């Protein structure tokens, strides 16, 4: 498994490389997204699931990642958007907009990587907004 830094670098490289085979690229992006989720889970001492949800392991991994940490839902739409583009690319690999779809899939995968990487450095990323929790609980008082 690649490190998060290597995944980010690969995604940045893919953004600049427009000559990829769309189906292979779609599969690689999905694989990288699953690895990103696996990093998050392993940082929580959990074993990444091999199960699938709605036909995709990525969604099962994301769901697993949210357990006990609802702010992880901040990347729910990114996971679903990536699958949306994955399905579009597989469903119509000859489509006139294939390059633009691939470009969007890369952007979404990169965002997933940046968010999860950021959250591994700072676990409170997303707490205030996406789970409506306080950012800092140390020293909190109660009315």
């Amino acid at each position, binding site marked *: 498994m690649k490190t998060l830094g290597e995944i980010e670098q690969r995604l940045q490289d893919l953004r600049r490389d427009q000559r990829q085979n769309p189906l292979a690229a779609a599969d690689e992006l999905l694989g990288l997204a699953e690895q990103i989720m696996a990093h998050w889970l392993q940082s929580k001492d959990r074993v990444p699931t091999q199960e699938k949800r709605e036909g995709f392991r990525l969604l099962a991994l994301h769901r697993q990642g949210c357990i006990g940490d*609802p702010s992880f*839902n*901040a*990347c729910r*739409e*990114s996971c*679903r*958007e990536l699958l*949306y*583009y994955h399905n579009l690319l597989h469903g119509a690999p000859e489509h006139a907009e294939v390059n*633009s779809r691939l*470009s*969007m899939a890369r*952007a*979404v995968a*990169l*965002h997933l990587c*940046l*968010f999860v*990487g*950021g959250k591994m*450095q*700072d676990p*409170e*990323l*997303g*707490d*205030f*907004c*996406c*789970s*409506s*929790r*306080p*950012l*800092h609980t140390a020293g*909190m*008082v*109660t*009315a």
Partner: protein
Amino acid sequence: MSDKYKTVAYYPGCALEGTGHGYNRSTKAVARKLGLNLVEVPNWNCCGAMEVKNIDPEIQNYLSARNLSIVAEKMSIDTVMAPCNGCYHNLKKVEHDIAEKPKTQEVVDRLSQKAGHASYQAGEVETIHALDWLKEAIGEDGIRERVKNSLKGLKIANYYGCMYTRPRNIFPEKDQGGDSESTYQPHYMDDLLRAAGAEIVDYPLKTACCGGAHTLADSDTSTKLVLNLLQTAEACGADVIATECPTCHSGLEMHQVRAETEFGIKTSPKMLYFTQLLGLALGLSRRKLGIHENVSDAKELLKQKGLA
């Protein structure tokens, strides 16, 4: 156009009196132009945003409940409109918590009594966002009928941010099917700006994290997240990122500058509040809409597109 939301209590919140002043100005200008009445909540206080929430979430709930109490008790209006996602989120959250958590009602009752005003009870006031307000009170047809200066030729990526849709449980009116707003794929801003003639690009990061609350604590994470938002909008062909929250807007503007100074990466999309864009379409001037108050300078772009 419906009579619903023709008159609403207006809760601008702190940001609209500071960094988001252009949003405040354009919201009021659009209301005047459309014949809608915004009645500012008298003696409103901070919603508690993140500062008070970080010290005591129940006091933050009380602060938001006090604003709702003023609307219920002093204004004889049953709807409050908050244009800021943070304020909107916090007002929705206290509504949810009062209904679901006895502890919240108990704290709100106790502090309200101590402060000498009526305690807010769940259901007395409906909280809406500026998008709900214009979508319902005017709607797409109403916008189309009133367009004087179409946004045709302007490509827009709509960025909704996170607090407009998350967490889902505090927004029970969303995800109801039909034309209701979606937490997965919000579309109200798309609908309104499309009706004003704009070309809405398919933007896959419309609710993705910008690192907002960590802007100062961890600027590099925020800058990288925002840079990806900006580069993706650029890749979508967007001239403009439309916003509906002063915090999102400031974050995008600030980190666009920081991405250039720290990482040497320049991006082209301009940030404009959706009310500024609607105002332009309705024939209002840039100055009336506070576009000159934005950090992101859209003057040349708007001139090129015949909108200034």
